């Protein structure tokens, strides 16, 4: 049994890393607050709050034995880099992001401490599917176009991107399928359908909605999650292959007929051919990464503003410019660690629903990170999704914190429950 679920273990004292995170916070935010030559107390105050929050979270998690204390520490470090970069780009945006960070932390604690009370009741596959479809339709009806794609819902002062939450619902949907595939054995025209094929049709409908809203990145991400979960939990290698071929053909046709997708492919294959137009974003990103070299220009000494959308999609390029690719590699390694902790939880869980839920949430973070970092470095085509915990955006940050809260809950109360239940049966 892993030490973080053993209440008697006294070895799990994450003392050194947490001091390190707090120290980094105070140094980075302290330096940022005097960057312009005039002391800006608010930035230092935010840094202090951030450090205190990190301590508080760890203390609460330990005190109530809420599971893995490293998960939130890894994220705290990601947030140190993300928040400081946002504050450096613009104090206004940085402060907004900080407020979202506080809201996210609140949701994280709420999710982590309550989800275990309800998880057994909420696992109806049709419930999650209906929620997704409702969100899609709502977006189509009351949604607003930003940058040419209708994928925002704006309610008064509050705007959010439904796809960030549909992503989480999709993982629940898949986990429900794993725990009870028979729910999808439908009777159509006096014949019983195969659950897998029913699932496939339902998933392709979801993909269709994403493509309709030009959320190609999220579509690709949930498709990868879908295939991975089928592969791991259904052992359906041939079926995964069929899905991949169909999706591949569909993507090929889509690139031919949808100019928006074709532009993305062209700007990936040859960004320098139309550097003033289609290739502008990606080449500016490459210039930024290149000018940062290994150690970076130093925070505040580069020109990240030359990249369009730097605070959202291209935040990784800005980090590479000013903190060097060593800063960028630090981000990648932190995500590797985060995925590692998530996979560890997932390996320990036994119930198919919780196990596939933990797996789905973990790989969501993993693949999303790869898709966006690979996109801005031109390893793969740019898909325009956010870097979890680092990119600017309320929806992205909040949904990432909800994923984190769910993982925390799975690593703590739920894992312990499962272990004890099995022990009771064993006795």
């Amino acid at each position, binding site marked *: 049994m892993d030490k973080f679920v053993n209440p008697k273990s006294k070895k799990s004292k994450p003392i050194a890393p947490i001091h390190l995170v707090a120290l980094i916070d105070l140094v980075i935010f302290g330096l940022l607050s005097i960057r312009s030559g005039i002391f800006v107390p608010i930035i230092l105050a935010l840094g202090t709050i951030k450090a205190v929050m990190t301590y508080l979270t760890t203390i609460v998690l330990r005190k109530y034995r809420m599971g893995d204390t490293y998960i939130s520490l890894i994220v705290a470090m990601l947030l140190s880099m993300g928040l400081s970069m946002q504050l450096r780009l613009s104090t206004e945006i940085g402060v907004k992001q900080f407020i979202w960070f506080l809201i996210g932390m609140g949701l994280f604690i709420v999710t982590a401490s309550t989800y275990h009370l309800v998880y057994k009741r909420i696992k109806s596959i049709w419930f999650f599917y209906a929620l997704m479809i409702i969100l899609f339709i709502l977006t189509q009806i009351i949604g607003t176009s930003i940058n040419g794609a209708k994928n925002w819902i704006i309610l008064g002062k509050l705007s959010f991107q439904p796809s960030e939450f549909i992503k989480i619902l999709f993982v629940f949907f898949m986990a429900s399928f794993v725990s009870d595939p028979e729910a999808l054995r439908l009777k159509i025209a006096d014949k019983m359908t195969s659950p897998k094929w029913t699932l496939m049709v339902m998933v392709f409908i979801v993909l269709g909605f994403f493509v309709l809203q030009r959320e190609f990145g999220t579509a690709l991400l949930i498709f990868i999650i879908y295939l991975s979960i089928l592969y791991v939990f259904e052992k359906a290698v041939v079926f995964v292959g069929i899905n991949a071929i169909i999706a591949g053909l569909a993507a090929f046709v889509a690139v031919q007929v949808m100019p928006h997708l074709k532009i993305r492919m062209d700007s990936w294959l040859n960004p320098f051919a139309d*550097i003033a137009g289609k290739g502008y974003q990606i080449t500016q990103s490459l210039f930024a990464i290149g000018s940062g070299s290994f150690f970076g220009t130093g925070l505040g000494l580069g020109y990240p503003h030359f990249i369009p959308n730097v605070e959202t999609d291209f935040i990784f390029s800005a980090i590479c410019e000013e903190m060097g690719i060593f800063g960028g590699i630090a981000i990648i390694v932190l995500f590797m660690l985060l995925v590692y902790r998530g996979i560890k939880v997932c390996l320990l869980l036994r119930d198919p629903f919780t196990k596939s839920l933990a797996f789905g949430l973990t790989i969501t973070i993993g693949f999303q990170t790869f898709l966006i970092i690979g996109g801005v470095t031109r390893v793969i085509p740019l898909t325009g999704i956010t870097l979890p915990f680092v990119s600017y955006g309320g929806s992205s940050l909040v949904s990432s914190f909800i994923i984190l809260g769910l993982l925390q809950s799975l690593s703590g109360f739920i894992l312990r429950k499962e272990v004890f239940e099995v022990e009771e049966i064993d006795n």
Partner: protein
Amino acid sequence: MKKSTTNNRILQIFIVINILFLSLIIYLSYFELYGKEPIMANNYNRRLKAYEDGIVRGQIFDRNGEVLAETKIVDGISNRNYPYKRLYAHIIGYNSNIYGKTLLEARYNDTLLGKNALGFVGNAMSLVKGEDKTGNNLILTIDHSLQAKARELMGDNRGAIVAINPKTGEILAMVSTPDYNPNESSLRENWSDLSTGENSPLLPRALIGLYPPGSTFKVVTTVSAIEVGLDDFIAEDTGSVVIDGKTFSNAGDKAYGELNMTSAMAYSSNVYFSKLSEVLDSKALISTAEKAGLNKNLDFDLPTKKSSINSVIDSKTEFAATVIGQGELLVTPLQMALICAGIANDGVIMKPYLVKNVSDRYDTILTTTLTKESGVLTDPETAEIVKEMMIEVVKNGTGKRASISEVIVAGKTGTAQNEKSSQGQGNDHAWFIGFAPASDPEIAIAVIIENQEKDGGQLAAPIAGKIMAEWINKNNKK
């Protein structure tokens, strides 16, 4: 059993994710080391411009501290100013927001912007002290008064002058004409004339102008002949000679009678040297020419064209033409100056250079260019014999007008046929190469003036003499 397979598959996906992350890390490292190199200089990389705007570009000085290029910041807009306007156009080049950078401004861009390690250290200090970021300065080997004198003597002619310290390889003066005013406002005003002008004013002739060397090449021929033991060769000069059906004659069809090598050099007898070609092995001459730097890329602070000789010469007439400096031969003025400097420096050609030092904003010297050998033209004994012949050229021969009172000057004149003149459409080029004082050379020089009625001895020699005199007088006053 079933459960362990699920966990195995979970681990497989975990490994896939880790491989993807590792590939990103490897790609990023590759990109920084190799991948970014061809793209970073792209015009759309606004960082280069932004970086330049935030930095005071380094100054350029002559060897005595005279300011040749400086950057002034007026109302936040930096402006490159060349106080001597056209005088250094073909050495320093220009640094323009519109037309880019050329010559030293381009080659030493990183140094002038402080973008190398030395600059970073200096600018880290300036950040602490709250000063403007400043690039590093260049101190050239050029002597401003000599450069000005050379330019003045060149007048309105087209051509080039290269003066060099034969013992060190320092370029003392380098003039190419026609030239232009490299200041931004002037460039903008005259750009269409400059870029399309018939006389190519943007072309640094001293470095990339390829000319037939004419009789100045006889210096290389004599080196080759002496090395193979032909220094006692004697020929009867009757004014012309027929070699394999082609007639070679002296300038003005003069006949000099019986000549040895020294007198043949002094009179620049084409007949003598054409006859010499019949006993000289073409491979020996080509080998000497290549030792003199032909057919080789020159390692220099600025881009140069490669001087060339045919690497195989089979035809007798072609070889006779090559021996007297015509034929398939092309040289840059810089290359001729180097050959001349090689004779002056006991057969050793020093690597030419323009940038003597790099200094920082407090005028502290950061780096000093070390002198080094570029190649060995010949042995000291042969060089000494050729030097004596060249002294004779100035004392009693075609180069009399290069002489300086109380100083022994060595030299060789040349009058080179070129594409236009051989078709009767224009005049020959006037050449002179030389060095002084012959006993302990301080300056070696090559002068070429394009398409002149007068020959090298009449026109190029006096210019070379005056420049050498100016330099020697200046050194003696010290």
